[in-house]
């Protein structure tokens, strides 16, 4: 037995200095095991079969033919699968997406809907049998086309109120010296994380064990418990390494079908989505049709602002992509109206995808701001600085900190913005037209209740156990640094274990809230543990463990507008011969609270900005109206940015301190994408004189755009 010490010797703070990832060695040697890679004796393999029609009912499933194929163990479908409960509200306060509650009835609400799971001894046998499975349907007419004037559109709340309104919009616009009134569209976009969704389910001594790839082990645990009417303690979900999530990795068809099959077959069953199946089963970002109306005084001050956003959702689940939410934080005007509407179509259910709402919404409003700057004859940064609000435009609440101006000043200095000639279409280098653009960014800084277990071990080390998830964010490393500082020890003495629902409830890795929420719980636990150890307690062999719960502390936090902010800068070259747009240079400067690990934070911010490039130029899932499915739903048909698309990109940050926040972390997972596509689009206008209000800015769109006339602009 030893006496544990904390803070006895001078320990340099770990937070704020670069640390390589604690699991880095496992990742570069291939030792890190992801969900589909944990071996089990007697493992069976499930393969999902998806509908080929976009709407209708399953008439027949010819199971006999495939049950006779080599190695086939079972075919689960709506006629024989266990019944599940979907009438509940989950951890995030929302009901489950019925797409995950597989095989409950014969209805087919969209193309690529799961109709059966074929289980076999080997993956090859399961795949061949699933592909051989004949399913017939009674087809019904379908509607999969989102149009800005769709008669089925209605206001919907989602994770914020559907509509806000103050002042007289018509009067505000009528009295404005300059008005912008434009429509913007963004296409269907898919998360496309590199690791497909995978789960292995097994019953072990009366307990359901699921090895899964998800964004919250307790989230999936509680959802599975509710769905299968089990006590939460009878379900354990583990997810040690996760190959990306971006909002898509919650409860989905793979876990539920694997649990069903393991229950029926009494043996471990693994279900892995194929890349193509992910395009209808894993959620996506809905296309949006947006309209922005801005009215400004002669000096560029906003008098009227309206932002309306419409997205599609499925007929079985309502998901709102709240594009109009950005203006509620960013810009004020006496007349201010925002509205998020949805329309139900015969399409798969969309879901959260990196900066839901902010990513498409910022493209529209930050493009519109650039258009207003052009009309006012103002520098786009100056226009934004003149419209910095004193308080939340809709809430009236004070900002906890709002360092947007500092981001613009620092970014402009480093990017060389002062030398910019504002006129469009003026810079040519061979067949390339060059331009620069900017845009603002914001993203909410929230937190969710979390519990943490912290143990002082007898050998003088410390173990943190928390059901956090490291999707590649660097959370495991960040929490190690936070724990080390809270205990006043070196990070080498701290071991952080995550991704296990047995560690207790914790916030998911989502909404840029994970690290903030978990760090809070760990800091509270460390304070309690230090108090215990300060009494000179001798640590017994089993260690001393304390548990924290931040529910009460979160409730006590003052109501304020809490957000990260940022300024995005892009330089593009547009090939006048091919229509290709290249992003040569990009800089993002962010005010994102306390940066825990500069090495991983910069990487994540730059990653978000690369998503912005990808959104601006490449990503577009195209739905075939006749079949209701996607054209070429794979990584050849759906383009995400690769190495050659990414030039010189950097991200940095300014001091951003919030005195009444005990944690100070704001999260860096999502703000990097916000405004990034608008900065690229604004740079394309500066290069060519053509406004692109529909993403992506494809070569054909560039080539078919009206050539700019001298001194004037044009529209694409």
């Amino acid at each position, binding site marked *: 037995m030893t006496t544990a010490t904390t803070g006895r010797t001078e320990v340099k703070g770990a937070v704020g200095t670069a640390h*390589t*990832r604690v*699991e*880095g*060695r*496992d*990742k*570069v*040697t*291939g*030792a890190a*095991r*992801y969900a*589909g*890679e944990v*071996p089990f004796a007697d493992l069976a393999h499930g393969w999902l079969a998806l509908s080929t029609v976009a709407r209708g009912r399953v008439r027949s499933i010819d199971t006999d033919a495939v049950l006779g194929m*080599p190695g086939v163990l079972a075919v689960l479908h709506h006629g024989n699968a266990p019944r599940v409960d979907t009438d509940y509200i989950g951890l995030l306060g929302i009901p489950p997406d019925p797409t995950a509650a597989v095989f409950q009835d014969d209805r087919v609400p969209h193309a690529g809907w799961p109709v059966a799971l074929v289980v076999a001894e*080997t*993956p*090859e*046998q399961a795949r*061949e049998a699933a592909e051989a499975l004949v399913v017939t349907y009674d087809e019904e007419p379908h509607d999969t086309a989102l149009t800005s004037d769709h008669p089925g559109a209605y206001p919907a709340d989602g994770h914020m109120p559907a509509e806000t309104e103050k002042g007289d919009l018509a009067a505000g616009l009528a009295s404005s010296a300059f008005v912008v009134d434009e429509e913007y569209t963004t296409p269907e976009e898919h998360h*496309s*994380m*590199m*690791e*497909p969704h995978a789960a292995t389910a097994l019953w072990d001594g009366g307990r359901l064990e699921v090895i899964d790839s998800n964004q919250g082990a307790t989230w999936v645990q509680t959802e599975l418990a509710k769905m299968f009417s089990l006590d939460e303690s009878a379900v354990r979900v583990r997810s040690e*390494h996760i*190959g*990306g999530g*971006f909002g898509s990795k919650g409860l989905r068809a793979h876990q539920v079908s694997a649990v069903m099959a393991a229950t029926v077959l009494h043996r471990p069953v693994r279900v*892995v989505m*194929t*890349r193509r199946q992910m395009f209808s089963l894993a959620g996506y970002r809905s296309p949006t049709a947006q309209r922005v109306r801005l009215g400004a005084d002669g000096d560029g001050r906003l008098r009227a602002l309206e932002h309306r956003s419409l997205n599609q959702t499925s007929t079985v689940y309502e998901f709102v992509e709240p594009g109009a939410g950005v203006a509620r934080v960013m810009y004020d005007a006496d007349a201010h109206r925002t509205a998020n509407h949805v329309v139900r179509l015969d399409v798969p259910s969309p879901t959260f995808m990196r900066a839901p709402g902010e990513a498409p919404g910022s493209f529209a409003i930050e493009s519109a701001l650039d258009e207003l700057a052009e009309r006012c004859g103002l520098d786009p940064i100056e226009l934004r600085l003149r419209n910095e609000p004193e308080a939340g435009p809709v809430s009236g609440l004070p900002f906890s900190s709002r360092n947007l101006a500092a981001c613009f000043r620092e970014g402009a200095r480093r990017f060389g913005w002062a030398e910019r000639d504002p006129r469009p279409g003026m810079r040519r280098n061979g067949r390339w037209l060059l331009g620069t653009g900017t845009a603002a960014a914001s993203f909410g800084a929230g937190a969710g209740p979390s519990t943490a277990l912290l143990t002082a071990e007898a050998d003088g080390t410390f173990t943190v156990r928390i059901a956090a998830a490291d*999707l*590649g*964010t*660097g959370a495991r490393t960040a929490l190690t640094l936070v724990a080390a500082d809270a205990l006043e020890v070196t990070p080498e003495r701290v071991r952080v274990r995550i991704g296990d629902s047995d560690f207790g409830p914790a916030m998911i890795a989502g909404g840029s809230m994970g690290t903030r929420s978990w760090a809070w719980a760990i800091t509270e636990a460390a304070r309690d543990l230090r108090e215990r150890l300060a009494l000179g307690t001798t640590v017994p062999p089993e260690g001393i463990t304390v548990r924290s719960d931040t529910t009460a502390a979160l409730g006590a936090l003052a109501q304020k507008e809490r957000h990260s902010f940022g300024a995005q800068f892009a330089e593009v070259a547009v090939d006048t011969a091919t229509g290709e747009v290249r992003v040569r240079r990009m800089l993002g400067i962010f005010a994102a609270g306390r940066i825990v690990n500069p*090495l*991983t934070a910069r*990487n*994540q911010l*730059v*990653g*978000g*900005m*690369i*998503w912005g490039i990808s959104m601006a130029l490449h990503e577009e899932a195209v739905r075939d109206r006749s079949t209701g499915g996607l054209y070429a739903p*794979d*990584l*050849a048909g759906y383009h*995400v*940015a*690769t*190495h*050659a698309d*990414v030039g*010189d*990109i*950097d991200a940095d940050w300014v001091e951003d301190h919030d005195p009444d926040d005990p944690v100070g972390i704001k999260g860096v997972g999502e703000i990097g994408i916000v405004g990034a596509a608008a900065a690229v689009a604004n740079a394309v206008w500066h290069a060519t004189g053509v406004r692109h209000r529909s993403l992506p800015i494809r070569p054909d769109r560039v080539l078919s755009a009206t050539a700019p006339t001298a001194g004037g602009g044009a529209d694409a």
Partner: protein
Amino acid sequence: MAPAPSSTSSAVTLNINGEKHQLTVDHRTTLLDALRERLDLTGTKKGCDQGQCGACTVLVDGRRAVACLNLAVAAEGREITTIEGLAEGDRLHPVQQAFLDLDGYQCGYCTPGQICSAIAVIEEHAAGWPSAATEDVRPEAGPPPLTPEEIRERMSGNLCRCGAYVSIVQAVARAAEAHGEADTESAKETAA
């Protein structure tokens, strides 16, 4: 469980990371599934299973190949190197070390493929192979400078959805630099 060879399966010997593995594989089994499902070498990742993402890149006779588009039965007689075969004991391969030091990843799922690809890129470049980014492709021009543009072009078959491209390119450049210095050193030694 290794079933006996039949009309739909064959016994093969696979040479992986210098070790011989005898197994009976379904003729449909890809090299990727043989590694992951049969030999417990799960470091090689399955991102798309159709040759579009590069996550399953391995070295076959020293050249990079996507394991998902190779059948296991066709890999007999080849020398296959996977991510598990790169480090020498505790000593990481210089490319692995550079990825670790420079944070050339985020989620880590594309990483084994990126690293195997990078090792081949450095070799291909040193051998004078041009790329679409090479200005002067005449053989007598010799290897072009391994600029960021060259690395980006040559690495573009490996997707990283987290968007860690900037640090991956830095890591490849650092490893290539170390590789070049090592070559120069060994050339000096040979000359001496």
